[in-house]
């Protein structure tokens, strides 16, 4: 082959091995907050190595187009990374997942066009991997944008259930297999475009029935898909660094998906088939709630906290909605100044993506060693004077432990009910996402503090200062 590339094929491949090693070491350093930042930089370095080696090792033409793409993408990426608010991080990750999937699908399209133009025919395994790349990439693209719409509140977060959706999904799957067979037999653009269209439709249909609180699972799964799409593209181009980096991301997303479904005590199939709390929650809303609750004002809450020796905050999605993280940290600082022990209990599915609460609290300068996960903190509630629940609901419902008829039975929960007393900050008495009433509200030790979380926390803080 006549080439003007600066690097030989061997040098290029050695460069790719170095990039792969840097990716793995970079991910390994994400194992601790102390080394994570350097790990992320190593991964970025790995990417730079991979790009440079590709440019030097190949005889690339049409530079004006490539440079346009590089500059355009960099500007959009840098701008969104700088501007995004921490509360909106799930939306950003969803959109980026979508772009990753789209890139893989477009690369597959361009490669198919090149191979067709060459006219030498296309090997079966290449046809199949091109299809895998466009299908996974296409599903990731539209699925991610629907997830974004739900997170941003543009699309209803209620599960939308089409009556014959399972029939449609199966028909689409059969269509994809047929298109793949067609492409293998007769390599042309038509079956490719059919498969792309089906993949785009499937992405919408699969994510639309999934409710808002199940978004952590969906985002983790789409994250995994964006990696798998990249790996599939690696198979198309016979490029190892794509396969390795893509599989690392695929594995990461799958692990997070499993952690999330485990924390909800549900199977992945159950989440993906959707409709949680719609089909089986009907009976829960049947009887009108008449049991008494105890409601308090911020000054009473301040008094309770002032006389405590230990306090645990339990944040949930409501904290993100109210953007109350800074006010909570201020209150915690005040309590710590009074010699009160303060910790935070973080449920794995609190918020709209894995680790959402941790990032919000880190933004408000809460030290990460005060954030405790389920196993660390659950034994501590019985030794705690006041548990303050801010915008969390289902993850604190004690009926998950006891009521076998409850839709959330068996889900691991935070044992908030074992604290001496509980302050529950909430906007109103509405049930949680699962559509079940929270038994915690009706315990004698539970005080309901109604109102906007940010507002309530601010009032408690100013009352405490006056005490």
């Amino acid at each position, binding site marked *: 082959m006549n080439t003007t590339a600066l690097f030989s094929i061997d040098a290029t491949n050695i460069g790719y091995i170095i990039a792969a090693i840097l990716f793995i070491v970079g991910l390994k350093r994400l194992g601790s907050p102390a080394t994570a930042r350097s790990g992320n930089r190593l991964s970025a370095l790995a990417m730079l190595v991979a790009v440079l080696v590709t440019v030097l090792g190949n005889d690339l033409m049409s530079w004006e187009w490539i440079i346009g*793409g590089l500059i355009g993408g960099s500007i959009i990426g840098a701008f969104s990374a700088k501007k995004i608010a921490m509360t909106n991080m799930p939306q950003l990750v969803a959109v980026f997942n979508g772009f990753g999937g789209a890139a893989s699908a477009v690369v597959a399209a361009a490669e198919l066009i090149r191979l067709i133009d060459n006219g030498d025919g296309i090997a079966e395994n290449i046809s199949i991997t091109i299809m895998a790349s466009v299908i996974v990439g296409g599903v990731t693209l539209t699925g991610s944008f629907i997830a974004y719409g739900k997170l941003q509140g543009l699309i209803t977060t209620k599960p939308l259930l089409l009556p014959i959706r399972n029939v449609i999904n199966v028909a689409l799957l059969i269509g994809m297999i047929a298109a793949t067979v067609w492409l293998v037999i007769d390599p042309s653009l038509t079956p490719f475009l059919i498969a792309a269209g089906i993949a785009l439709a499937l992405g919408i249909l699969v994510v639309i029935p999934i409710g808002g609180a199940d978004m952590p699972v969906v985002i983790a799964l789409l994250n995994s898909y964006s990696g798998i799409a990249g790996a599939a593209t*690696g198979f198309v181009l016979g490029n190892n660094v794509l396969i390795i980096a893509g599989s690392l991301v695929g594995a990461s997303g799958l692990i997070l998906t499993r952690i999330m479904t485990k924390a909800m005590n549900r199977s992945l199939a159950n989440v993906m088939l959707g409709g949680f709390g719609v089909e089986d929650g009907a009976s829960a809303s049947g009887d009108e709630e008449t049991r008494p609750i105890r409601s308090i004002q911020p000054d009473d809450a301040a008094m309770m906290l002032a006389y405590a020796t230990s306090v645990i905050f339990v944040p949930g999605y409501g904290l993100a909605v109210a953007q109350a993280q800074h006010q909570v940290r201020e209150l915690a600082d005040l309590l710590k100044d009074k010699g009160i022990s303060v910790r935070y209990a973080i449920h794995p599915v609190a918020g709209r993506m894995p680790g959402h609460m941790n990032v919000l609290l880190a933004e408000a300068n809460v030290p990460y060693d005060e954030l405790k996960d389920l196993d660390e903190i659950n034994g501590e509630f019985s030794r705690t004077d006041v548990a303050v629940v801010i915008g969390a609901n289902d993850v604190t419902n004690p009926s998950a432990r006891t009521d076998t008829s409850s839709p959330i039975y068996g889900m691991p929960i935070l044992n908030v009910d074992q604290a001496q007393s509980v302050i529950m900050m909430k906007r109103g008495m509405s049930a949680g996402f699962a559509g079940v009433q929270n038994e915690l509200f009706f315990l004698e030790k539970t005080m309901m503090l109604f109102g906007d979380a940010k507002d309530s926390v601010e009032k408690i803080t100013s009352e405490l200062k006056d005490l």
Partner: protein
Amino acid sequence: MTDTQMLIAALTVFVLAIFIGYEVITKVPPTLHTPLMSGSNAISGIVIVGALLVAGQADGIIGQILGAIAVGLAMINVVGGFMVTDRMLKMFKRSGDK
């Protein structure tokens, strides 16, 4: 190498990489799960390599445009993903750190 041999070699790399990923990522603590997602998102931008190859080797204008679009999309992931992850990780502090 024949097509089949190449496919099997690629599958070997794929399977081993999944195992490495599984071992490494299980050790990431829950507190870092959001940066893990955005960081791995940036890594999935590795498809930039594929995008550069198809953009640079395309003969026709359609291939070149598709390549440039893929380069742009992947670049959003790479630049945006690494930057936002760095922005988040900068905020994680231990008690006593200033």
